């Protein structure tokens, strides 16, 4: 792995990463909050259930990622799903049943599922 020795190299690296991320845009991105507390609340169970449901249905356009705290303790486990061309939506209270429902209803059919957490913040993007 080559090191990043200049600002230009860092910017080039960033462009390369952004291009790679952009290539993912036609995929469904499932982001599961996995901080200590989210894991304790069942975040890993939700992730595994969704991965299982994705496999059961033979879906190939779904990518999973983990992230840290999504700040919604009251609604853990929380999962953010981004359908291609749509805004990300965060769902709360994702137990195993809800996790599977999210895959079969929201991911596969785009049908709304209960438990949407509205965006109540502005995020500073650097």
């Amino acid at each position, binding site marked *: 792995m080559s090191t*990043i020795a200049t600002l230009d190299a860092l910017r080039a690296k960033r462009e390369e990463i952004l291009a790679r991320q952009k290539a993912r845009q036609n995929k469904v991105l499932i982001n599961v909050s996995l901080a200590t507390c989210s894991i304790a609340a069942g975040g890993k169970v939700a992730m595994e259930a969704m991965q299982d449901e994705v496999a059961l249905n033979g879906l190939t356009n779904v990518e999973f990622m983990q992230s840290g705290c999504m700040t919604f303790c009251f609604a853990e486990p929380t999962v*953010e799903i981004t359908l291609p061309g749509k805004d990300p939506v965060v769902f709360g209270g994702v137990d195993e049943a809800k996790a599977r429902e999210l895959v079969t209803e929201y991911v596969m059919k785009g049908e709304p599922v209960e438990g949407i957490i509205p965006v*109540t913040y502005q995020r500073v993007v650097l």
Partner: protein
Amino acid sequence: MAATTQIKQLRIATRNCGFIDPESLDDYIAQRGYEALAKVLTMTPAEVVEVIKTAGLRGRGGGGFPTGVKWGIALSNKADQKYMVCNADEGDPGAFMDRAVLEGDPHSIVEAMAIGGYAIGATLGAVYIRAEYPLAIKRLRKAIDDARAMGLLGKNIFGSGFDFDIEIKYGAGAFVCGEETALIRSMEGHRGEPVSKPPFPAQSGYWKKPTIVNNVETFANVPAIILKGADWFSSIGTATSKGTKVFALAGKIVNVGLIEVPMGTSLREVIFDIGGGCPDGKEFKAVQTGGPSGGALAHKDLDVAIDYESLIARKSMMGSGGMVVMDEDDCMVSVAKFFLDFTMDETCGKCTPCRIGSKRLFEILDKITKGHGTQADLSRMKTLCESIKDTALCGLGQTMPNPILSTMDTFANEYEAHVTQKKCPAHVCTAMLTYTIDPAKCTGCTLCTKVCPVECISGTKKQPHVIDASKCIKCGACYDKCKFDSVIKL
């Protein structure tokens, strides 16, 4: 509904938490990660310090000391070695924002520490983190390793000639080690006990070298300030407190969680608009800010614009940002007792006012909650609080009386009721509580007799029942079971 959907939160310190994979350096770079460090390395250290000063960033660990000023002192102190330390010894009950940032965006801390290191002339950094945060440690360690592998830590960063590396130091979970001098002692392998200041760590700290200790959340703001500019940051917040503050909303509140709001947001907006108020339709009573070092704010304070000064003016403090919400069912004397129990356990014992004072304060509070308190106890407690504030060695002792002083001030009537009428208005202190049955409401369903563990409820079926107060152990089982609200707490 309209109120709850309004955008009241602004995420700067938690900008990446929940949005990026904390174990991916690429994800961080995609968010312009390490660009702030690259930019800083083209500036002089004095210019970097000036940016942080102009931004008005103040310590997010509690004290609120201007970060740029602190860095400036370390910069002006010449030494062969200086240290940049990140205080991740998060210990306030109900506060978890530092863990959230470390678990959600560890690279921002690594980058900010390197920026700080360059600004003060330090080549070594250390994160002091409690060992009971294993996931935060794992992700932080990976971030440090990945950054080092990419040349973003180590020798000659960005070809600038600046060297910086970070090591992790584990704490054993002693609350006092969040105090910077105790933290440094602990890092050196000594008992975690504070020492008197001056000299300040910026003059003589870790191994007697100039050392800056900043909190996790303070660091998390730094890359954003560097990239977006000091003027942008100082345009957010109040006259004296710039930027945002992360709060951990806990206790009797609907939307328990982390929030980040501009300084100057009112308590009402935080508790009701963002927090959603108290659950089960209960009435909001108070919120403890600043953890065991802070105080309780009540109804009268709801429109206070939250910043460092306004909280201090109300005998509380910002602290690390814990907000424990209490509703009508909470007894403020018991709340103060809870916090004193905590500080009594956590005092390091080095200085007498803190070690013995906390014990005596706890004993008086215990006496009051058991119904044996007197007026003399109240005045004795107040005097003792003042003496401890004046004489304790470190911040832990100096702020330990705050929960008592603030509740005695705001909820004086509750203390009065405990000592004069021997009543706990919130019906929490069981020693002063009697359960009775309202004969008008009792249907004689006999449910209460079946759950009473000491069989002190008698009566015939379909006739009002009676509780024998002399036998009642006040467990509350009948109260919880009764479907007709006929069991009353007096």
